[in-house]
């Protein structure tokens, strides 16, 4: 075990642990935000640059500070490393810059976006975003397309985290979508019209940090904060059957995996709790589910506000 200090809190972790995961072991607001890293999907991370942190001391052996900010999701800790996240002005400024970069071409169509309320970019923008844009150029636009008959892709909202590509690579047998073109023209696409037909493809929706991939069976039905998230389970031959059903009265509006405070699916029976498309898209009838009880949404977003407990937000207010 090695020791690392993050924002003045010391924690012992196994060798090879990344700074981000060490911070998650401490918890709270010491944890850097992560838009592309997803602990349950190997080979994700490093791209969005929102998890940049300052390394004030590299290790006990070599206590020199690292000259550049590093991505906490992919940088392993060293014994005696001292990391600054929320206590670093540099981190605050540069993370703000990353948020600005992510937003310059974003359509800011939150009022009509199904992800609103549970969008990581929205949260980040709220915490770090400037009040007005300095971007005077025309925004890049794409037409929405279908990725299979249950998933809608709004490329305009995509931040190119590559998580959905990792889902397709790692959970499905045949990937039909990917990243095409390059630079600011890079896009997620199938290139030709091609249906994503796979029992686990719907997990792309769950891993998408923004509203780029949305559930067509839920599209425009309701804002998430009007729904009641309930833990539910069913006998399923394809997946664990352990889900969250989002109810409006006695109607199920949508079904998702059970996500933790970082928006990642929780483990079920020792494995990541990915759910199958049957559970997600086709079981919208309460009789199909055994309802366990209210699901605590451990997020600082609006969903948790005034639902089952009091507001737990500690976010500073914008002026």
């Amino acid at each position, binding site marked *: 075990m090695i020791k690392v200090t993050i924002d003045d809190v010391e924690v012992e972790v196994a060798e090879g642990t990344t700074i981000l995961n060490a911070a998650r072991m401490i918890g709270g607001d010491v944890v850097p935000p992560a838009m592309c890293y997803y602990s349950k999907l190997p080979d994700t991370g490093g791209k969005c*640059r929102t998890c940049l942190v300052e390394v004030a001391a590299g290790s006990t052996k070599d206590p020199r500070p690292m000259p550049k900010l590093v991505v906490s999701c992919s940088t392993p800790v060293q014994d005696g490393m001292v990391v600054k996240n929320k206590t670093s002005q540099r981190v605050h400024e540069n993370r703000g810059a990353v948020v600005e*970069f992510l937003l310059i071409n974003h359509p800011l169509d939150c009022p009509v976006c199904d992800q609103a309320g549970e969008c990581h970019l929205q949260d980040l923008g709220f915490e770090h975003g400037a009040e007005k844009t300095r971007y005077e150029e025309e925004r890049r636009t794409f037409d929405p397309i279908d990725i299979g008959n249950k998933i809608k892709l709004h490329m305009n909202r995509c931040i190119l985290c590559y998580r959905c590509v990792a889902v397709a690579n790692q959970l499905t047998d045949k990937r039909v979508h990917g990243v095409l073109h390059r*630079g600011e023209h890079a896009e997620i696409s199938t290139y030709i019209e091609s249906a994503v037909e796979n029992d686990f493809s719907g997990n792309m929706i769950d891993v998408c940090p923004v509203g780029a991939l949305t559930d067509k069976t839920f599209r425009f039905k309701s804002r998430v904060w009007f729904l009641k998230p309930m833990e539910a389970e069913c006998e399923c031959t394809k997946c664990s059957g352990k889900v969250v059903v989002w109810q409006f009265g006695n109607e199920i509006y949508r079904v998702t995996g059970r996500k933790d405070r970082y928006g990642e699916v929780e483990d079920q029976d020792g494995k990541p709790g990915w759910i199958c498309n049957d559970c997600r898209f086709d079981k919208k009838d309460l009789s199909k589910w055994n309802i366990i009880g209210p699901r605590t949404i451990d997020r600082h977003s609006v969903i948790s506000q005034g639902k089952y407990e009091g507001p737990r937000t500690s976010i500073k207010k914008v002026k």
Partner: protein
Amino acid sequence: MGRRLLLEHDNVAGIETFDVYRKNGGYRSVEKALKSMSPELVLEEVQKSGLRGRGGAGFPTGMKWSFLAKPEGVPRYLLCNADESEPGTFKDRYLMEKIPHLLIEGMIVSSFALGANQSYIYIRGEYMWILDILEKAIAEAYEKGFLGKNILGSGFDHDLSVAPGGGAYICGEETALIESLEGKRGNPRMKPPFPAVKGLYGCPTVVNNVESIAAVVPIINDGGEEYAKIGLGKSTGTKLISACGNLVRPGVYEIEMGITVEEFIYGDDYCRGIANGKKLKACVPGGSSVPILPHYLVTKTAAGEDRLMTYESLADGGFASGSMLGSGGFIVFDEDQCIVRNTWNFARFYAHESCGQCSPCREGTGWMEKVLNRLEHGQGNMRDIDLLAEINKKIEGNTICPLGDAAAWPVAAAIRHFRDEFEWHVNEREESQKRNYGLIREPQSIA
């Protein structure tokens, strides 16, 4: 004219063929290394030579080699970076076109030192005709027993082949090159792990520039110490400089490190001055990524000393008043050139070449290009100039690979030294569309 270690025979007729190359002393280093030296000894000579990576970063080649992991039973690879794409740089092309066997010879000796039984030359796809030249030369080397099994009876086996890219500057970044060579998009990898530990196919890999590998040949022939006698301080040996822009005689020159910039631009052996009797306005001495120097900082440093063609002297003054030797892509601007237009042009290049993986580079390079486009075309505002400086500060150091820095530095340097010219484009919008600004005045105090 100084000594020429790489291009000594570039004008010998038929030098591209094995026989003529061999008659002119070719493949001696392979004989010497494989017959009388151990891999460790070859590495030692390269370390003694002080050779620094000729692709642009200037990292000591011997040190890079010494980092190569050598786990039992795992193949190691040497990759030659022939993806030469940095604007202003066309030296590797000249070397490969003219003397392909020199590169092949260097590949064999370097691979022997590294214990690599397989190496690849990754060449930019646009140089497809050079790929043909290289493959022809490689076939000859196989035929003559310098490649293949048990080379010269030494027990060392080596296979070499060439792989083309498909048009992507980013593949000059070593991990992007590896990705591309694996048949994928040229997205740079996150580091660590470094290629020396996990490179091609997850195996330990060294990636070296064409010129670096070629330089191993004279280093082994004459010894590392002899090589290190040429040059100045930590800038040892000779360097290929590709000179272009508004020069009387642009082209590829092999220089001894340490000659003055003045001699290189104006000397009879080199570029012979600015074309058409015009005045020098600015110079980008090491490829488009390095900071631009205004005329008063080209031949003299801010301290008034002669600026020399070395890593150290070109960097003298840091980013405030210096630049870098970089890849040796030496671009000269005469008094009629527009710095705003050129900065926009370079920004467009980087936006075009960004792989799009990480957000600061993907979004930032495109943003800078658009703002500069407006400024150049008389549509800019004063706040745009500060905005550019802001954007490039937020790209720099925050990206996966150095392309972000490479895109940010030229913009930062152009604004630093040519701010008046940028402001003139805002204040004299119409005038700026009709004529160019001309020479920039030397500030009273530049230190």
